[in-house]
């Protein structure tokens, strides 16, 4: 299958490489030319703009930072829509607001392009392993066409519903992971400050009802004080902003997510933004008088 890929950052690069590995023909473009290099070396086609990508492939994928970037690469002057043939499918795998995804889908539909919002969970590790969880919103027919590409990048692919539904699922995912990281950090910090071995506590809890992937993986990295990203705190802050703005729009109280979002604000404001989101532990240590290094 001919697939175009736009945005080759921490996530996009391994995802595009997995498409090539699965035997698809991939055409790439990225804002920074040097980030295209590894893909070109792996055999990807070299494109000069998102429009150029759309000219070469009837299915295009974008993986960029935020809604304005998605608008730019799809609806901008040199965007996908400028060159897409009738029946083109564009798949945005970035994390953006559900309302923004719906708005872009409507405008793309007006130009004959069918859009899927397909944000992912699993981080850089999942992107490299091809084991991402992919949550999809959009029409069934477009989903069916893109499914082989999804299967090359992820192992759990679910069509949630219509346009925007994928982003709603991703927002739910970010509530759970954001609050979850805070809960694990608070629990381990509680154990340590009580003079108890936090590693033992983690081990004990893994066998019980409080088991979670976050306790298992993120908890271990907290114990190892390995704060290398992973998933950077500033990105989680951005995702929590999307969640809270959506809650505001809906008239929906999310008290725990709101508290956690403020913790992410504090992380970014105090220089922990480039650390993994598990550096929440450092913030908690500092709040209660510790060094948090």
């Amino acid at each position, binding site marked *: 299958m001919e697939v175009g890929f736009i945005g080759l950052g921490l996530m996009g690069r391994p995802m595009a490489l997995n498409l090539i590995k699965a035997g698809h023909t991939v055409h790439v473009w990225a804002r920074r030319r040097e980030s295209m290099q590894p893909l070109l070396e792996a055999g990807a086609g070299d494109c000069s703009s998102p429009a150029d990508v759309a000219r070469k492939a009837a299915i295009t994928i974008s993986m960029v930072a935020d809604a304005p970037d998605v608008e730019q690469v799809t609806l901008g002057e040199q965007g996908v829509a400028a060159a897409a043939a009738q029946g083109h499918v564009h798949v945005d795998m970035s994390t953006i607001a559900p309302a923004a995804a719906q708005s872009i889908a409507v405008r793309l539909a007006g130009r004959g392009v069918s859009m899927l919002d397909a944000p992912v969970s699993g981080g850089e590790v999942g992107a490299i392993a091809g084991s991402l969880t992919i949550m999809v919103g959009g029409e069934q027919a477009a989903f069916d066409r893109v499914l082989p590409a999804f299967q090359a990048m992820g192992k759990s692919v679910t069509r949630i519903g219509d346009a925007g539904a994928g982003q709603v699922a991703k927002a739910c995912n970010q509530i759970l992971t954001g609050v979850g990281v805070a809960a694990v950090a608070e629990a381990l910090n509680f154990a340590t400050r009580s003079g108890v071995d936090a590693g033992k506590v983690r081990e004990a809890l893994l066998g019980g009802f409080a088991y979670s992937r976050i306790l298992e993986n993120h908890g271990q990295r907290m114990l190892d004080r390995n704060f290398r990203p992973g998933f950077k705190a500033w990105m989680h802050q951005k995702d929590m902003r999307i969640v*809270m703005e959506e809650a*505001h729009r809906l008239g929906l109280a999310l008290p725990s997510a*709101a*508290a956690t*979002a*403020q913790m992410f604000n504090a*992380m*970014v404001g*105090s220089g922990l933004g480039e650390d993994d989101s598990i550096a929440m532990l450092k913030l908690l240590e500092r709040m209660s008088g510790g060094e948090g290094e």
Partner: protein
Amino acid sequence: MRVGFIGLGVMGAPMARHLLAAGHEVAVWARRPAAAAALVEAGAMPCATPAALAARSEVVISIVTASADVEALVLGADGLAAGFASGCIHVDMSTIAPETARQLAAHYLQRGVGWLDAPVSGGEQGARDATLAIMVGGEAADLARVQPLFDVLGKRTVHVGPAGAGQVAKACNQMVLVAAIQAVAEAMRLAAAHGVDLAAVRHALMGGSAASKALDIMGQRMVERDFSAGIQARLHHKDFAILMHEACVRGLPLPIAAQVWQQLNALMACGWGQDDTASLLRVLERTSP
């Protein structure tokens, strides 16, 4: 002074009347001409567009709802910017994002037009009684020229700093005020849970260190269960979106404000957006019968 006025809502209408009564030549523009009818009858001159209003005014005052409204008013077709002569001043008394205020000030600066962001605190009552607190961002020289108008509208004007600073002060005001209203509502629930008389608790507290405007005015509304607005809660809800967004952009934790924001979200969901923010009491009652 030749003053233009835009935004004749519950705040703007009494403010414009005070300016007329003080002897200023007031012109008005409203999207729906009917909205301006009462002011025109009182002696204000109607204008066909914001540009026409700006062309005949030394100072234009606007008090509308949101950042986008002010932007459209200034930059839209036949907007204020198209009508102002050099040396005129736009005084925006709406509550909008500080960033929008800064951008509009910069836009005007290129054309020699002055800008003040001058949001107010004191609500409908303060507008009617001309006792508003006015917090100003912009150039001191522009403020000096407009001060006589502010003296008609309010009893206290503070020059907070450059363009945008008035809106920053207003954001702080909203954060403190609504958090205080929430605190009063929680106190009322605590008193009620003990079966203690709410009016007596409020009265006792007003004599001590916890006395505040919120306890005085909103507390009284809660005691009387009078939830008709005052200030519509939806406006506080709107303001919280602005200030929480700024906090996010600046990497600033506001843990209490974040919780108050959620209570406001719940209030909106219950359909009380048009009611007074004292309705935060009713939000609490839904989770503790």
